[in-house]
């Protein structure tokens, strides 16, 4: 940990940042695959299945972007990142896109020099406690031991919440969700706190999910979304409009089932035609093929399908759409028009 680290850090910073400054799309095309940063494993959002194939809601975004560029949703290298390593990985160019339940905050957008391309899940921070504890409100947690992932916004929200309510707590810093789960189940902490969606996903993997409750308090706004590096606007556009394409597809009723049919010939809805590339030149404007959005949607379905298949009410995670319903259904999910 002496001079070598210093030089090593300089070298790494120098070499990787050198890569980062080139056009990301060209790099990705030359490489033949997209490097996508995901969690180290959070069922429903990003986790490898029994065959080692990554799947989940965030993984769906990665696959859609890869499909939009290459027409192949499997042309993705998944890079597992922790709460602490994710930003360095993105800033250094190790990954091209970070889709890892990352909260959009001003300082991350402005000071850390990242570009959030949209919100794919509106979340808030919650608390998970064992039922046996008999706690019904987060304000009763005075003196509790709380497991918290380091390097997250939840860590800061937690500090704020306990300070505002003038109660004390003992933080147990953990690195990954798996570690948090182990510590929580062993009883080394009374409470596990992170985004409510993550808590629901974690609880779904417990042996007895019914023995644990989510406290009613949601103590923060956590708009989670994919992000890219600041400075390469063309690349940011591709990620942003791929996400928008998934959202618009749900709004327009384009699903992975009827997409082949709709894309074969121009139909009578011009917005569907523009989205699927049978009319206009939206793909060329992004520097992609005309059927980019069709490929992205066909990869894992539209936004609603991704939600229902990975984290929706029919899965073990069982999250309701809530704020994440389409704006036409009273939710916040809203894409600018394809025009």
């Amino acid at each position, binding site marked *: *940990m*002496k*001079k070598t*680290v*210093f*030089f090593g*850090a*300089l*070298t790494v*910073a*120098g*070499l990787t*940042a*050198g890569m*980062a*400054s080139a056009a990301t799309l060209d790099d990705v095309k030359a490489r033949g695959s997209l490097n996508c940063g995901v969690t180290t494993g959070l069922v429903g959002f990003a986790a490898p299945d029994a065959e080692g194939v990554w799947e989940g809601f965030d993984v769906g975004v990665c696959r859609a972007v890869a499909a939009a560029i290459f027409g192949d949703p499997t042309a993705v290298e998944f890079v597992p990142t922790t*709460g*602490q390593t994710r*930003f*360095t990985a993105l*800033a250094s160019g190790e990954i091209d896109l970070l889709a890892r339940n990352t909260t959009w905050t001003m*300082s991350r957008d402005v*000071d*850390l*020099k990242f570009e959030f391309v949209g919100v794919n899940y509106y979340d808030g921070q919650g608390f998970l406690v064992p039922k046996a*504890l008999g706690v019904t409100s987060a304000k009763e*947690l*005075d*003196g*509790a*031991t709380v497991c918290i992932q*380091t*390097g997250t916004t939840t*860590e*800061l929200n*937690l*500090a*704020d919440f*306990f*300070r505002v309510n003038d109660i004390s*707590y*003992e*933080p*147990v*810093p*953990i*690195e990954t969700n798996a570690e948090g789960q*182990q*510590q929580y189940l*062993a*009883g*080394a*902490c*009374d409470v596990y706190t992170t985004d409510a969606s993550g808590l629901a996903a974690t609880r779904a993997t417990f042996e007895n999910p019914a023995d644990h409750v989510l406290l009613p308090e949601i103590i923060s706004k956590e708009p989670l979304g994919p992000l890219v*590096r*600041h*400075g390469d606007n063309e690349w940011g556009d591709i990620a942003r409009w791929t996400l928008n394409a998934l959202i618009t597809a749900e709004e327009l009723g384009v699903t992975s089932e009827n997409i082949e049919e709709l894309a074969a010939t121009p139909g009578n809805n011009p917005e569907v035609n523009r989205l699927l590339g049978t009319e206009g030149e939206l793909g060329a404007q992004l520097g992609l093929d005309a059927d980019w959005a069709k490929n992205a949607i066909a990869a894992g379905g539209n936004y609603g399908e991704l939600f229902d298949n990975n984290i929706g009410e029919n899965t073990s995670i069982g999250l309701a759409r809530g704020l994440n319903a389409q704006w036409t259904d009273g939710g916040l999910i809203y894409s600018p028009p394809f025009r």
Partner: protein
Amino acid sequence: MSTLTDPPKPGFRLSQLIYDTRYRSITIQVIALALIVAAFWWLGNNTVNNLNALGKDFNFGFLNSAAGYDINQKLIEYNNQMSHGRAALVGILNTLLVAFLGCIAALIIGVFVGVLRLSKNWVVSKLMAVYVEGFRNVPLLIWILLIGAVMSESMPQPREFRGENATQSMYFSDNVAVTNRGIWIPRIGFTNSVSGEEAVAPVEGAAAVASGGLDWLLVLGTLGLSLFAMRLVRQRADRIQQATGERPTTWYQRLGLLIIPVGIVLFLLGATIVSPYLKGFNFTEGIHLRNSLIALWFALSLYTGAFIAEIVRAGILAVSKGQSEAAAALGIQPSRTMNLVILPQAMRVIIPPLISQFLNLTKNSSLAIAVGYMDVRATLGGITINQTGRELEGMLLMGAFYLALSLVISGGMNYYNRSTQLAER
């Protein structure tokens, strides 16, 4: 008589730079220097360019902004409204704490095991061999994780201590609680504290106590003076022995000097033992040794202790057999031979490699992240970097800290090394 021809003028040709051994070494050094300078320039230039490309500047202003996160183990006052610099300092002190505790424990373990491994008792020496080979041949990280997992998985939860028919009870007449969140041990509070801190009653109905730095300074200062006085007594005994051959019995004087002054100071300050007790979710009062500290401390000490044991064994074996035979011939008891003859000579061999083991232990303490111990790597090098995006600055500061700490340790140990070296005439 033919005339003598002048020796040929040694004209300097460029090829001599390569083929002439007188110049070649200089040539190579100049080229190497140029390459190193070029490499540095390239690295520096690259860093500056890429920071510009990312739109980042290089400044340490982030150290003054509010940290916003909490730290569980803090040796100095800290809350989440204090600065990142303060958080880094809390982390530095935690690193120093675990490095200090680890070095002491590793030294004690190492000396014991190293001596015992040379024991003539077959069982003892083989047991020590198993310890040494077992610990030094398994990666440190695995020991840290293993001890951490054993602590958190196999110990009882605090809530199991609660209620009329609790399934767990505290040890040493309700003074020590061993839980899966760490171990709570009693602390000493002062009813007549001079530190100026506000006295608080640990339990309702008990006398109010405080324990400030000034109180401990008084106690430790008294202890230091006692130790100094004990040394004077010993030196006097040495002088009398030199002069008369009779050594006066001093153990009761020294014991008295050790205990009585400290006892008086503690009594005047009104020292009382404050035991931990269960309150709410956790135990409160007392000193909380967190799982992370225990796992890291034990793993570092046991791991490094195995290496130190081998160094000690090598040092003892390096003292020639004639020394112990001579001691036996002079009638020195075998038990005193080790302390008076063998170890002082072995120290000369032991100390230099011991320095690097201490340095290893200190630097290895940065593995703290595995069990969530909040050392400088976790605060400055982890959360602060993550929240502020100042990777380069944070890493440089952390590197500078470890460099400085290592230099201080090796400086101190080298000073001690010189004092034990053979004074050659």
